[in-house]
Every structure is written in C-alpha cells, then in structure tokens.
C-alpha cells in the first residue's frame, strides 16, 4: 500500500480542466435527475391523488425496459421498441389499477404496502419465467451511438444528451398539460382535494385510471431509456424505486413541479457527491482512508439532503396539499 501513488482530480490540475470536469459531472447529474423525474412524476401523482403507496412502480420501469429491449432486438429498431414499451407499461399499469389497486383505496397504508410489495415479487418472477434469469442486452441506437464534444475536449455520450433532452421535453409537456388543459386541471383538483373534486362532478374513477396509466407510461419510458445504459434484469426497478421515493418526499407528495425540483436536486447531489467527495476528503485524510470514508458519505448524501429538507419543510419543497 505504501508504495502506491494516487492521482486526484483537483490537485495540480489547471483550473479550466477542473471546471470542464465539473460541467461534465453536472451533465451526469442532470441525466440522473431527469430519469428520476420520469419515475417520480407518476409516483407522486398516484400517491397524491389516489393516496396509494405503490411500491410496484419500479416494476413498470422494468416492464418498459424488458418490452423495449425485446422489440428492439427483434425488429432492429429502437423507435419501434419505444413504441411498444410505452403502451405496454401503461396497459399493464391500468390493468393493475383495475384489478388490484381499486380494492385498496379504502384500506390503510399497511395493506397497500403489502399488496404492492407482492406485486413486485410477482412481476420479478414473471420476467424470470418469460425471459429467463440472465439479463437482456440492449444497445444504443446507431444514430445515437458515439460521443459529441459539447464541452470542448470532453467527449460526452450522445445517448445521454438525448436522455436529458427527452426528460426535459416530458417535463415541459407535463407542465403544459397541468397548467393549460382541462384534464390537467381536473387531476390537480383531485390531488388537492378529491372529495371536493368528486362533488363538483369530476369522474374520479376515470381520473384514477388515467393517472395510473400516465404514471406507469412515464415509468416505462424511463425504463426503456435506461435499457441501453443499464443491465436489463429482473429486479432492476427496485434500485431506482428508493431514489424515487426520496425524490417525492423532498419535492412534496402530489406535486409534479416538486418532483421535478426534487429529482434534479437528488440527481445533482448524488452525482456531485460521488464525483468530488473523494477529492474533498483527501485534503485532510490519508488517501486510502479517504476513499472509504468518501464512498460511505457519498452514498448517504441524498438521505442527509432529505433529512435536512424535511426538518426545514416537513411537507417537502412544494406540497400539493399546502
């Protein structure tokens, strides 16, 4: 150990190189953030409007990835894969809403957690039965492979740029929909006070199914877009699910705008923490020790962020029921 030397970012590196690295890491954070947004927008609506804790939200992410990977592999076209993945996730979502969740609206949260946790196991096992135990392969479409130098000197994968673009577009679309359409207004009304909305003649049952379909469609989109970057495997939804819950708690339950801010915040803190925590700890700790400490602190960073925000604003940044 003693004979080894370590290079660290930020030490003896020209300032502009460090700046470029920081910009690159911000892009990485943005990309994680928009993926989390796609997941949390749906989950926060479901939670906010239907008062259902849906642990199975990650399963729709997985369904999107599996269906997308399969259709892409069969047809050779990423866009066809996308066209298949979105309705598949939405349809399965609406089916689950109609068959399982409708029975749970009046029950307490423990029953919902148990039932949706059961759904996770059901879907994980189902993918294992249909697709087998090994992970599936999914490649970046040819027209998005390779890198672009949007930051001079640092090639950045084009596909990740595309993911950021799609995520921001969806955010814009959701904003327009909620702010400027009738259905958006109805959904918002349902989120703030569902009895009142129901009394005013809004078909809450239909809204529920639509919201669930929209939420799972977005989860499917997130899964489909994650497919080329990640391993498409049974249980892939659970690792992102925890982050998604952190996002909606930070953003305020039921608020899509809160989910957007929360997702970007979590994406940034997680990414920048992992990227720069080691260099920071090396300033005052022996290198080998610093790496271990930094790794542990970095993986805690978003939970620390969540704790701080909850102390400051117990209902999250932009709660729907404020």
């Amino acid at each position: 150990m003693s004979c080894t030397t370590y290079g660290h970012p930020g030490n003896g590196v020209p300032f502009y190189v460090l700046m470029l690295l920081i910009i690159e890491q911000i892009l990485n954070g943005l990309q994680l953030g928009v993926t989390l947004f796609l997941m949390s927008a749906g989950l926060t609506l479901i939670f906010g409007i239907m008062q259902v804790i849906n642990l199975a939200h990650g399963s729709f992410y997985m369904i999107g990835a599996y269906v997308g990977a399969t259709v892409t592999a069969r047809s050779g076209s990423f866009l066809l894969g996308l066209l298949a993945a979105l309705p598949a996730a939405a349809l399965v979502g609406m089916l689950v809403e109609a068959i399982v969740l409708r029975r749970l609206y009046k029950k307490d949260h423990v029953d919902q957690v148990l039932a949706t946790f059961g759904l996770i196991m059901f879907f994980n096992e189902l993918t294992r039965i249909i697709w087998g135990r090994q992970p599936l392969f999914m490649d970046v479409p040819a027209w998005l492979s390779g890198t672009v130098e949007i930051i001079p000197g640092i090639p950045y994968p084009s596909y990740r740029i595309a993911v950021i673009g799609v995520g921001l577009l969806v955010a814009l679309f959701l904003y327009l929909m909620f702010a400027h359409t009738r259905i958006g207004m109805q959904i918002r009304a349902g989120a703030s006070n569902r009895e009142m909305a129901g009394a005013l003649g809004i078909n809450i049952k239909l809204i529920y199914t639509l919201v669930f379909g929209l939420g799972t469609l977005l989860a499917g989109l997130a899964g489909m877009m994650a497919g080329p970057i990640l391993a498409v495997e049974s249980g892939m939804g659970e690792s992102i699910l925890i982050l998604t819950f952190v996002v909606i708690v930070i953003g305020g339950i039921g608020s899509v705008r809160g989910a957007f801010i929360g997702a970007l915040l979590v994406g940034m803190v997680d990414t920048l923490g992992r990227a720069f925590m080691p260099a920071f700890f090396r300033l005052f700790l022996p290198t080998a020790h610093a790496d271990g400490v930094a790794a542990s602190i970095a993986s805690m960073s978003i939970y620390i962020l969540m704790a701080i925000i909850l102390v400051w604003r117990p209902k999250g940044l932009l709660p729907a029921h404020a």
Partner: protein
Amino acid sequence: MKKLFMVLVLFVLLLPSTTWATKPVKIGMVTTLSTKAGYLGEEVRDGFKLAIAQEEGKLGGVPVELLVEDDGRDPGKAKQIADRFMKRDDVKIMTGLIFSNVAIAVVPKVVRSDVLYISPNAGPSALAGKGCNKNYFNVAYQNDNLDEVVGKYVNEAGFKNVYLLAPNYPAGKDHLAGFKRYYKGAIAGEVYTKLGQSDYAPEIAALRDAKPDGVFFFLPGGMGINFIKQFSQAGLNKTIPVFGPAFSFDERLLGAVGAAALGVKNGSQWTHDLDVPANRQFVAAFREAYGRTPTLYASQGYEAARLIGSALKSVEGDVSKLDALRAALRKADFESVRGDFAFAANQHPVQNLYIREVVEDGAGGYTNKTLKTVFTAHSNAYVDACKMD
C-alpha cells in the same frame, strides 16, 4: 383475510411431504435462484444435475437425491434452509452457496454439526484461513485467486498506472487486495462505489481525468454490465484496456453486454475451451442437455458433484463413515474438467489460473478464449493461517 389464511394453511398441509424413508444419499443444495443473481445458482444447479443425469441418478455409483432450495441471497433464509436440511432431512453432505457473505453465515454451523460442506463458488478468506475446517471443502477457488491472476498478468504486461474500482463492501476490498498482491505498479485511483449502483457516469468521468493506462474492476453481475456498457459509450474502451476477474464476463452476462466487452482480458480457473478430455466431454454434454454454453459456475457445480461422487464411491454410499468420506474428498480422486486438480492443506484448490479474452463466438454472440496460463498449480494466500485439527 381469515378465509385466505385458511386456504393457505390447507394448501401447505396438502403439499406432498418430501420426507420419504429411502436409500439414496441426500445432498442438500442451498443456492441462489431468485434475485438478480439467480442465474448463478441456476448454472451451479444445472452443472450438478448434469453429473447426476450422466450416471442416471447416481454419483460414484451410489444413488443420490438432490434437494435444492433457493436462499434468495439472504443469509438468514439460507441458515434456516440449512437447518431444515440437517434436522428434517438428515442431510450429511451440503453444497450450493453462491455468495461469500451467505457462506460465512451458514458454513460454520454446518461443519460444526459434522456435516460436510463442498463449496461450488463462494471462497471467502474467512473460511480459508483461521476459519478453515476439516469438514469444509472448496472445489472452485479461493476468492482472491481470480484477482491474483489478473494482477500478475497486468504486472507482467508492463502496466504502470492502473485504476481500481469495486463496490464498497467487504468482498470488494478483498478482491482489490487480491489484485494488489501481484500488481506492483502505481495506482491511479481506488474507487469504492455503492453496492448495487447502476449509473457509473461520475466515476467514469473521474477515471478519464486520472489518465490511467489500465482499469481493473470487480463489479459482479448487473453492476459490471452497467459499467462496461457505459465505459464503452463514453468512448474509453478504445484507449484504456479493461481487466477484471471472470465474474463480470461469464457467457450469460456477455450476452447482455454485447460488443462493449470485446477484447477485455479476465482471469479464471476454467474456460469451456480448455483442452482436457474431461472438459470436452462436459462442455458437449452440457450444451446438449441445456442448449447453451456452460459458464464457469456450471463447471464448478459439475466438479462439486463429481468430487462428491468420488468420495461416495470409496465408502460405497455409507455416509455415516464421516472420517473415511472426508479422507476420500481430500484425495480429490476425480477427473477434473480443469485437468490437474488437488486440494491445498486448507482444502481449497491447487490449480492453474488463466487469462482469457472476450471474443466473438462466430454465431453473433460473445464468448471467452483462453489466452495464457499465468499460474500453474497455484494455491492461496491463506494456507499458513489455517490450523486444522
């Protein structure tokens, strides 16, 4: 709710009991068949079953009954299953565990109860050194082996500044330590990532910034797939060579990684192309039985079964002769698919270790090709720490 409960109770009561009083020797396999890592247990089980099928229900001429249970990668659950095997089924030979943390939780109690345990995969240092036991055998490898071989190879190939990456948990640190035991150059960076992490973009950016001349990583399962895909999407696979133990490059994972893994050199104790008669026979039979190329895990399951068979044969199926059975196991008198095979004093393998390269298999897929024998008759670093009574 109550009704549902009654139905469940009835269902459990009506399930056929598996406790038949029979002659075949029972072998308990606790392995991981569910979770993301479920394919590992599937490979070990299928390899093991192939050996039994080849002898038409016997091992070493002795009829056997294989009991398989899924531990879900959960040490607590694995312990319960092991207990049940020992108490209810009176199992005297056990095998199957995939993960080292599960093995550390389960094995000590098993071997203390005078049940023989033959590990087909997990080989933690805790069970190789001070915690070794006369009833514990590892037929696969000591965990560090597959990193040591890469360390030596990278060192001999003249790399001077290597970047290291592993998940932040005990096995991650062990694997990097195994690499560093034989790699003598500088270390460009040593990064511990979150266990189960899926996005490696921040680490990859930091890695490029450190300008290493090579990367060594231990990221088992899906984590490895994610890392290699993202590493190649960042365009780095063209400039910085990647090395690692075989765990991220078995034939089933390669299907999910695709071309991104081409040319990666990885360390293993076995490859399907090893030119040994027993191996040619095994690979052909496995392909015929399951329609896929066996991974190293399948070879380990097969070897575990054959080793057990050799011992059962010498006691003619009488598992109550524990001392004779153990002595027979220690001899390792079976035709290994790895060619020469023996047990070191701590009952872990003495074997050759190879560097393999990921190549196209000619049918649109990817596979491994043995490149170089780096160690011959290699043992492990913990032999001296093991004091067996």
